[in-house]
C-alpha cells in the first residue's frame, strides 16, 4: 500500500516562475515521529483529503519561510496526489485549503497519526536549497484538533 501511495506523489515539476521542485528519493514507509521535529525548527502546512479517502497531506518546511509560497507548492503536490487517488479509486477526491501549523500542533498531529508514506523534495528558494518533506497521514480529522 505504501509503495502505491508513494507512486501517486509527483516527481519533478516546475513551480511557476520560481523554478523546479525536485523529488529526491523514494519515500520511507515508516519514520519514528519523535525524530521528525526534535532539534529542528519546522513548520507544517496540512491539507485534508476529502471524499471516499481518509487521509491528509502534510508539508514540513523550515520555519521562517514564506508560507504563502509553500502553501501553493504544497497545494500542487496534494492535488496531484488526490488526482492520482481519484484515478485509482474511480471516486472524486478533493483537497482542503491549506492549514498552517505551529510546531506544537505539528508534533501532536505527527504523534497522533499513522504515517503511510513520505517523500522528500528540494526547491531553490532565493539561492538556498530548501528541503521539503511531504507526508501522507492516516486519520485526517487530526488537522482540526489544534
Amino acid at each position: 500500500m505504501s509503495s502505491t501511495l508513494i507512486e501517486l506523489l509527483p516527481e519533478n515539476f516546475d513551480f511557476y516562475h520560481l523554478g523546479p521542485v525536485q523529488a529526491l528519493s523514494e519515500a520511507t514507509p515508516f519514520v519514528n515521529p519523535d525524530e521528525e521535529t526534535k532539534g529542528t525548527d519546522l513548520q507544517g502546512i496540512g491539507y485534508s483529503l476529502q471524499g471516499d479517502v481518509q487521509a491528509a497531506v502534510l508539508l514540513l518546511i523550515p520555519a521562517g519561510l514564506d508560507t504563502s509560497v509553500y502553501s501553493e507548492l504544497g497545494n500542487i503536490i496534494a492535488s496531484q496526489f488526490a488526482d492520482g487517488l481519484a484515478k485509482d479509486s474511480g471516486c472524486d477526491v478533493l483537497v482542503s485549503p491549506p492549514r498552517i501549523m505551529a510546531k506544537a500542533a505539528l508534533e501532536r498531529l505527527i504523534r497522533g497519526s499513522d504515517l503511510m508514506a513520505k517523500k522528500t523534495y528540494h526547491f531553490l528558494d532565493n539561492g538556498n536549497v530548501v528541503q521539503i518533506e511531504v507526508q501522507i497521514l492516516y486519520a485526517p480529522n487530526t488537522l482540526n484538533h489544534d
Partner: protein
Amino acid sequence: MAGTVLIVDDVAFVRQTLAEIFTRAGYQVLGFAEDGQKAVEMYFKLRPAVVTMDVVMPTLSGIEATRRIIKADKEANIIIVSALGQENLVMEAINAGARDYVTKPFKAEDILKTANRITGFSKEKGHGSSSQSTPRAAQGGGS
C-alpha cells in the same frame, strides 16, 4: 470594461503571480478576492471582463461562486484555475458556467492565451471584441 480582470484565490502568492502576468500583458487588475463569497460580491461591484477563479477556497468554493455569478450574469467570463485536474471536477466547472479550466502550476502564456481567447482582448489593440469595449485612450482608471 474590456481588458480587466478580477483575481480570485485564497493564496496571496497566486494572486500576486496572476496580477503580474495580467498587468504585463496589458490588462487592468480591478481587484482580488480570497474566497468564493467575496468573489461573487466583487464581481458585481467591479464587472471585470474576465475572472480567474480558484476552486478550493474557504467559505464558498470557486465552482459554487461561478454558479452564482453565471446565474445572475450569463455573459460572465470565468476561467477556473485549479491544481486539481479530475475529469468530474472539470465537467462540474464547465456545467457551472466556466468558460475554461486551467490547471496549476500554469505557464503565463497559457493563462493569457485562454483569457485573450475568451475576451478577445489584445494588448496591441487595447480592447476586446465586446460591443462594450472602448479604445484604450478612452478607458477610465478603474476602481
